[in-house]
């Protein structure tokens, strides 16, 4: 961003705010960090665990929403990228004894690389074919852990146990582990949202939208379509990889049973619920898919229902919320928020 020399005048501050996306996003990021910190302080340890889970889910969903919402590609297999990130982190933390920050960076970069490979194939596939290919990835990749040559390394069906990161002693001896985990995830979430927001406003983001709207037109106007599509896959897989690394340290595991097709589908559900292409929507979606199962289970348990019904209540509620949101806001929750915002502004003018 080109910065004009700062002039000590209040009237100039607004244009700078308008002009500089970097500054605007930076301010939102700082606000977001403060909000997250305040939230984590008031919540109890278990709620902090859920906060951490929401955060890593939101990171994966944000990546997915960039892929689908910006570049117009679909992935039913993002759970597989989460698995790659989780296993990479588990191996580096437990076997190599690396410290957390480099582990997360390598997990992100490594998964982005895997995403680029998939992206090469994806750039040649369209619509249902791409959906099918990524679906196969979600089903196939986690069972790689059970492959004979890799069993020793990846722990087979039982998977790997990851020791959680210990809060530094400077925070006090009784500082809850779950709050430390949620802090790590929160910082990563804000950083990812900041980077993705900038990406979406950059020339690259514009190119991605162009590719989504009309590939031929984009190609004619000098956009390298395949390269943009591969890059989008790469970025979104990187996000899923980081989410996977955080998944491993929050849940203390990397195991095939955790990366089911249901995980991939719930990421997609979150993206659709929140509103495809919207980063704020990714957060709303992550909140819903993380908390809804817990709430509905508690509800069912309190109602003391028979076992056959009790076991299926979470799924029913899940479906119900999905139907309701799609009926009320076809463009996801974020579109609803925008519409309400517009209504409020119009009312104010009157």
């Amino acid at each position, binding site marked *: 961003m080109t910065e004009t020399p700062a002039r000590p005048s209040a009237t100039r501050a607004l244009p700078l705010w308008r002009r500089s996306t970097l500054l605007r996003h930076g301010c939102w990021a700082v606000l977001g960090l403060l909000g997250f910190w305040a939230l984590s302080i008031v919540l109890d340890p278990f709620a902090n665990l859920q906060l951490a889970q929401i955060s890593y889910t939101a990171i994966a969903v944000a990546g997915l929403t960039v892929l689908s919402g910006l570049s117009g590609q679909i992935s039913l297999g993002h759970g597989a990228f989460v698995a790659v990130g989780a296993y990479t982190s588990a191996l580096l933390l437990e076997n190599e004894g690396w410290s957390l920050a480099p582990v997360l960076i390598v997990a992100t970069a490594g998964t982005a690389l895997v995403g680029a490979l998939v992206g090469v194939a994806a750039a040649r596939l369209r619509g249902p074919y791409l959906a099918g290919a990524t679906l196969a990835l979600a089903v196939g990749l986690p069972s790689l852990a059970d492959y004979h040559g890799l069993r020793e390394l990846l722990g087979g069906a039982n998977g790997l146990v990851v020791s959680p990161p210990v809060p530094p002693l400077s925070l006090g001896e009784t500082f809850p582990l779950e709050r430390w985990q949620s802090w790590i995830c929160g910082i990563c979430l804000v950083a990812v949202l900041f980077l993705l927001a900038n990406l979406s406003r950059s020339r690259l983001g514009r190119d991605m939208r162009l590719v989504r709207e009309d590939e031929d037109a984009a190609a004619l106007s000098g956009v390298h379509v395949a390269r943009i599509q591969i890059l989008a896959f790469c970025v979104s897989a990187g996000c899923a990889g980081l989410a996977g690394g955080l998944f491993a340290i929050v849940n*203390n595991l990397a195991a095939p049973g955790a990366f089911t097709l249901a995980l991939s589908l719930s990421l997609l559900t979150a993206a659709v619920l929140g509103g495809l292409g919207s980063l704020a929507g990714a957060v709303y979606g992550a909140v819903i898919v993380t908390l809804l199962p817990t709430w509905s289970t508690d509800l069912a348990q309190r109602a003391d229902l028979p076992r056959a019904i009790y076991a299926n209540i979470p799924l029913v509620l899940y479906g119900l919320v999905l139907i309701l949101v799609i009926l009320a806001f076809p463009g996801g929750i974020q579109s609803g928020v925008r519409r309400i915002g517009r209504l409020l502004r119009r009312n104010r003018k009157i």
Partner: protein
Amino acid sequence: MVLSRRPRAAVALAAALALTLTACGGGGGGGGSTPGVTDTEVLIGSTLPLTGNAAPGYSEQGPAAKAMFDYINASGGIHGRKINLKYVDDGYNPANTVTLTKQLVLEDKVFAMVGALGTPTHTKVVDFLNSSRVPDLFVASGCTCWDQPDRNPYTYGWQPDYTVEGKILGDYVTKNFAGKKVAYFYQDDDFGADGMKGLDKFIDQNLVVSRQPYQPGNTDVAAQVSAIARSGAEVVVLETIPAYTALFKLTALRLGYSPQLVASSVGADPVTVSGLLENYAKQSGAPVTGTDLIEGLVSSAYLPSTTGGQNSWIELFRKVHDQYIPNLPFDGNVIYAMSYAYTFAQVLQAAGKDLTRQGLIDALNKGGFTGPGLVPFRYGPDSHAGYTGGQISTITGGQQVLSGTPLTTDDGDGPVVPYTTPQPAAPVNGVPAA
């Protein structure tokens, strides 16, 4: 005056300090504020699959354990406390197990975990439970990994581990099918590996003609079964879960191959297996009678059989079943869960009126618990392994018929020895004797 006042102040100060210190110590070690324990109730938690692939059979364990506790509670509970079990569905997904276990410990503040089910799921919370000093009793899995008192002082197994069972079956095969060719059909994970470790200690390696693994989830086992059939094995040992015992039998039937079957107790419950056989056969349009197909299946049992003769424990469990969970089948899973529930009640009884987590562990380490099991436990300060063996059973006329005496052994190179102490009678009201 000044002199006499000072010592008083010092004493008051010292007393206050001592009080504060004991209060702080109490927070960590128990005392009056043990989580999950009140004068009238003790709250415990469990995770198990109520939905998903692993739910058939296993989902009965939560309600069955709860029914046993309800029955004990109706007789007045233990030391005036009612046992309240909260069991939750993890769908056999370890990520869910972690979240739910933390919820049970951090939010619901359970006193202990009891009967949490599954190796890939529960191995992920053992560190958390032990670092939080939550007793983690009677994990429902035969993994040898629960028996690590140095690493995991709060975790205890319950059923005989897969190696112990493998040794007893291996010993039987060697003695009763001498010289016959043997094949193994095993689940390709720790379950299968631990089981084969036990089998291999007794079965002559020259006689083992084929070892065929299967992946849980992949229901096509035709390749493995035909490889075993081609090898000419006369005895096939199944280290399988019930679904794969049934799949093996059906696939072998299609190939016209009917070897002598020997199965780990995990996959040998006649009610579950015959039910599965009928289900699978119905799906492929060929109605069969499940019990006919498993006639002659040999296994090792460590609990009395649901159908076998007069047994006071089975009578007690059937009464509990008919009263609280009449809609569930009365099968091995129900017996299993009621039995570990009873063992927990025994430990609670032994831990005394002033219940603390450490008190519970101490009581458990003193050992000496006998109950529904046919063999003794191995609990002690140096052993957190559960039942030490089993008794050979053969399915005859659809029922598990026990033969010979119960046998005990260990994980290592110890011999298989008979256990001749008779089983104690079950208390009528379900409450273990103090």
